[in-house]
């Protein structure tokens, strides 16, 4: 009898505990779902063709967000142009050339911690180095460099991981066939690691598109009617536009629909980029034959 009772008690404990765990996980999923659905619902009422293609009017209380879309586009492309080539090449050196040892360990530790540096610190760095010291001013160039270096550790980390997952037998086979090390890297290692490199890079780009703090003092401007004509121009950007409209306008409540619209455009862009990366990774996992 007591055995059966204790058994019942134990099963009941299990049911309660698992119920709580399910509840916690459910809360997390519902939070994300709720956030996304709420933003789509609110944003859809503000987004239309002219919202996407026009400049703001009447002290930013009417009109669209075209300059901010263009600004974010330039900053994202600019930061990718900096972070991707530099990041992938660095990762190749670290995984294919550098000798294992304490120095490499230290470098890896550095890169890992670099990825954890708060984004506002990158903003300070960009301000001190690019805007002031190198004299780029508040500009697309300064902002792209700042964002590029912000995502660089992500790109290096993901790429190195992808390179290291390529079996060493692939390299040995290539070298045994008479290929040089460079040929092996270009034609064997890089293609095999490409999906992993791409996933990491795209996730980094998604992050760059949505960051606000690093561009506040390095690239973004409150309002400009003109589209940028040179890399040394200031730009409007989607994340900064949201911040400005929501906190420092004189008509905060009046512009609420514009704020929701801008948020919807930004999350469509960022989530779109991330879903793309997830799809690439899922496909790659299915196709992977080693």
């Amino acid at each position: 009898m007591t055995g059966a009772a204790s058994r019942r008690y134990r099963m009941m404990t299990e049911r309660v505990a698992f119920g709580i765990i399910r509840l916690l996980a459910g809360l997390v999923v519902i939070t994300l779902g709720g956030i996304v659905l709420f933003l789509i619902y609110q944003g859809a009422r503000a987004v239309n063709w002219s919202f996407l293609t026009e400049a703001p009017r009447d002290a930013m209380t009417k009109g669209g967000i075209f300059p901010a879309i263009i600004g974010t586009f330039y900053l994202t492309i600019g930061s990718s142009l900096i972070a991707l080539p530099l990041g992938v090449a660095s990762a190749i050196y670290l995984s294919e050339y550098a000798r294992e040892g304490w120095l490499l360990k230290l470098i890896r530790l550095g890169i890992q911690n670099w990825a954890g540096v708060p984004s506002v610190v990158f903003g300070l760095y960009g301000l001190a180095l690019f805007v002031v010291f190198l004299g780029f001013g508040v500009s697309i160039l300064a902002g792209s460099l700042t964002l590029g270096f912000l995502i660089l550790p992500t790109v290096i980390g993901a790429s190195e991981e992808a390179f290291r997952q390529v079996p060493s037998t692939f390299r040995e086979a290539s070298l045994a066939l008479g290929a040089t090390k460079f040929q092996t890297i270009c034609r064997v290692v890089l293609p095999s690691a490409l999906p992993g490199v791409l996933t990491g890079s795209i996730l980094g780009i998604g992050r760059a598109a949505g960051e606000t703090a690093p561009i506040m003092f390095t690239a973004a401007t409150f309002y400009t009617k003109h589209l940028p004509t040179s890399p040394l121009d200031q730009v409007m950007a989607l994340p900064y536009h949201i911040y400005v409209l929501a906190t420092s306008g004189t008509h905060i409540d009046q512009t609420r629909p514009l704020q929701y619209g801008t948020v919807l455009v930004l999350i469509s862009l960022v989530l779109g980029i991330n879903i793309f990366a997830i799809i690439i990774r899922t496909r790659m996992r299915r196709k992977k034959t080693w």
Partner: protein
Amino acid sequence: MTLTMGEGDVQMSTLSAGGNHASESTTRGVELKVQEGISKYFFLAAASTSLLVMALIMIFLFREGLAIFGKVNAVSFFFGKAWYPTYDPPEFGILALIVGSVSVTLFSSLVAIPLGVGTALYLSVLAGPTVREYVKAAVELLASLPSVVLGFLGMVVIAPTMQELLDIPTGLNIVSASIVLAIMAIPTITSISEDALYAVPRDNLEASYALGATRWETMSRILVPGALSGIGTAVILGMSRAMGETMVVLMVAGGAAQIPSSLFDSVRPMPASIAAEMGEAPFGGEHYHALFAIGIVLFLMTLVFNLVATYISTRFQQKGASTL
């Protein structure tokens, strides 16, 4: 070693080629050798540039920030309760800002730890393969939501709701900022904890089942203890992320540079102060240097969090069943 294999290959092809082909083959061999040398230095240069950038971050941060200590003494900077950078004379005491950061970080981790670890447990024990795929993707997407969007939601949804429900003077306070920060920290905690749970050897779990333990008993006494160091790492990294997050605290924490006496008081965490004031601080002035000095404090605090996380994860790494 692989490099010498490459050179050997060039010599062999030179030897084996006869007659006219000899010179052609040699040229090709030299080309490859040059390519080989150049490419190595190209990759080395890229890696060095990356490391240089990393070093420059610290150099510029410290160069601009340490300048404040020529004018304000370190004790009154760190322990001064008054942050009035634009008064005449200005006061640069950042204690209230540090307390602000610490309070939102701690309170957000109280919210994020159960949710984050609970989700990880759900994923690793209870979820079926298909549900697992989708929940994991959802968590990952939660991680990618831009912080300004979450800050915006905190401002327009959470803060007003809280203000009305609880009838308090402002909804922009520690609790609402912490809730939003928790949403940001959950994905970090979940994905790293899940990896740690996954790394616990299956043998241990099966041994527990074989002794008649229920799934819950196995989970609570074998799985979680076995993954504890990984879960610890996850929590610390999540807290580090919350502490360094700027837009959320800038928009939702209320911005009052005071030492809070209740959870419903407004605070001004360090990143918020930097972001809000840098635009107005005259370049090269005391205020400018003070904000960089706050940047140093923030940098060092998150660095300590990250180093502790790395230390725990390497020190207590599970190396197969034998170490249990």
